[in-house]
């Protein structure tokens, strides 16, 4: 391989960068540091499968023009899952209450549109700021303790927020929710239509931009320090990592992402109800990440696609009992299905390198 030539014929792997096989060049000369530099550069480079993934997402509305509402839901769930991946997959912080940030973002965006300004982007920003404020405050609660205390504290915070929204009727409309949210056109140009085309493209654009930002941040020295904390907290602090500070930052950041997902939900469905704060949102989200795998950013996105498709297929038949299937999936995945699926997925990925869709469908086989 010639040094300096960027696009070597690598096996395109959607795996996290660190699993990409390292420096292939033979005979490392003394003081030859090029392999290290190449390895770092290669890890951050875009893989063909990534281009494919986003291309598919962009052209999907042309192929399936009637499924744009579903696609919009997928994009929003994907953003929400991306948010949880930042804290769970990268920093190793477990949470059973992530719906709190989704819900606060949704209410903030809804209230802002109803009372202040109906511009979507302004509402998005307000929602992200509000959610990140709550994230910042509650981040101090997850710094200490074990996974079990964290699970319960996050669950408790989410319940508190739910109770608050439920009791503060004058603001949130209580059980009736916020109705009649009418949004201005995106960028003053694109009106929200009934078929959901604008909605989907708007959500996809927000998802894509925030994904780019997340990809950059998780590949930064900061992102590396998060993985250090997840892998070994003791060693992280013995390596000079200020653990608490990093966790506060990433928790706040993840809250902002979840808040953005909430804003998209409020703006594109033009409705906010207590449902956005329900416990099942947090639990479903866990399932999404389990399906897609944590710690490589695409897990949440792929998980969201599969989860929504599955829900669409099953819930169409028996919408009432959808939760049963979520429960069954959780039980099956935790009781050993996860390893099987990820092994099958990895094998498929190796076989049909570059074709992410193949890996996708491999992920579904139990």
């Amino acid at each position, binding site marked *: 391989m010639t040094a300096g030539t960027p696009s070597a014929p690598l096996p395109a792997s959607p795996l996290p960068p660190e699993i990409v096989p390292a420096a292939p060049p033979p005979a490392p000369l003394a003081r030859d540091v090029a392999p290290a530099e190449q390895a770092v550069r290669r890890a951050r480079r875009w893989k063909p499968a990534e281009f494919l993934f986003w291309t598919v997402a962009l052209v999907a509305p042309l192929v399936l023009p009637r499924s744009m509402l579903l696609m919009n839901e997928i994009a929003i769930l994907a953003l929400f899952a991306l948010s949880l991946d930042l804290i769970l997959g990268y920093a190793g912080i477990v949470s059973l209450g992530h719906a709190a940030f989704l819900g606060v973002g949704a209410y903030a965006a809804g209230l802002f549109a109803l009372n202040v300004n109906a511009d979507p982007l302004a509402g998005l920003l307000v929602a992200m700021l509000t959610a990140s404020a709550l994230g910042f405050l509650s981040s101090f*609660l997850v710094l200490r303790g074990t996974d079990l*205390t964290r699970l319960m504290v996050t*669950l408790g915070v989410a319940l508190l927020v739910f109770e608050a929204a439920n009791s503060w009727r004058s603001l949130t409309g209580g059980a009736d929710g916020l109705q009649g949210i009418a949004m201005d056109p995106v960028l003053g140009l694109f009106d929200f239509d009934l078929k959901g085309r604008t909605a989907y493209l708007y959500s996809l654009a927000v998802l894509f931009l925030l994904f780019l930002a997340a990809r950059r941040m998780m590949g930064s020295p900061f992102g590396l320090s998060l993985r250090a904390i997840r892998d070994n907290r003791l060693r992280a602090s013995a390596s000079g990592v200020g653990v608490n500070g990093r966790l506060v930052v990433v928790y706040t950041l993840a809250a902002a992402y979840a808040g953005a997902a909430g804003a998209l939900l409020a703006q594109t469905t033009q409705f906010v109800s207590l449902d956005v704060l329900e416990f*099942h949102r947090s639990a479903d989200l866990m399932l999404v990440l389990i399906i897609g795998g944590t710690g490589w950013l695409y897990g949440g996105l792929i998980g969201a696609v599969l989860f929504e498709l599955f829900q669409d297929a099953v819930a169409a038949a028996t919408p009432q*009992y959808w939760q*049963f299937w979520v*429960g*069954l999936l*959780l*039980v099956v995945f935790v009781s050993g299905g996860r390893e099987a699926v990820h092994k099958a997925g990895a094998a498929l990925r190796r076989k049909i390198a570059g074709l992410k869709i193949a890996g996708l469908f491999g992920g579904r086989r139990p």
Partner: protein
Amino acid sequence: MLTILFDGVAYGMLLFILASGLAVTLGLMNFVNLAHGSFAMAGGYVTVVLMQRYGMGFLATLPVAFLMPALIGAVLERTLYRPLYDKSHLDQVLFSIGLVFMSVAAVDYFMGSQQQLVHVPSWLQGRFDIAGTGIGRYRSFVIGVCIVVAVLLQFVLARTRFGSQLRAAVDDQRVARGLGIEVGLLFTLTFAVGSGLAGLGGALGAEMLGLDPTFPLKFMIYFLIVVTVGGRAGLIGPFIAALLIGIVDVAGKYYVPEAGAFLIYALMIVVLLFRPQGLFAVAR
């Protein structure tokens, strides 16, 4: 005022019975079983079905409401729970949430989503007056049953061979096995009894707490609070915690209804942060 106190005590006692199984599985066996409420719900529905479809008396259904969930618990422990003992708490939580969702949907499917009414026998209805305080007959009955169960439990855990074997098995499984203790059987039995007690609590509580398919979700957090606030070292902590929470919750809902369950959740978070081993935990 005294009536509220009394109702709170009854509620707390009930919470203790409902949560005692969780106190043992979480506190002693270190397994996070969020599906504990599903066993309670099972007990409640056993009573409902037996009374409505087979015309059995309320009291007569109670043993069945204990036995059925205990049996289900034993089977599930042997098949699904056991492989997860040494997995992470996150995995245990997700697994048991899965069970909760399944049980909620399944009960909804078979029994419908409406509230179930349990008619307690007429001699347990109404209330009597002691020094101007209204005392519900049924609540007195619940308190009585709960006290008996609590005393029995504490006796079994602290004074019997079973209890000491269990404590040995929890401390160090390998050593316990070496001593000839059948750890697997012990855990199955413990799990079954815990599930049965939840079922009994569910049957007793149907009249006071209400019973519908979302029961496990609604009360999941309460059980967890009892165990975390009470500490995981034994049953006395959870007992006091359950009473405290019962009283605070009833009084809170009476005096400051707009605060909803705020008080309880906030209490849990504060305790978790400052006394992660629980309020009444003894340092081990």
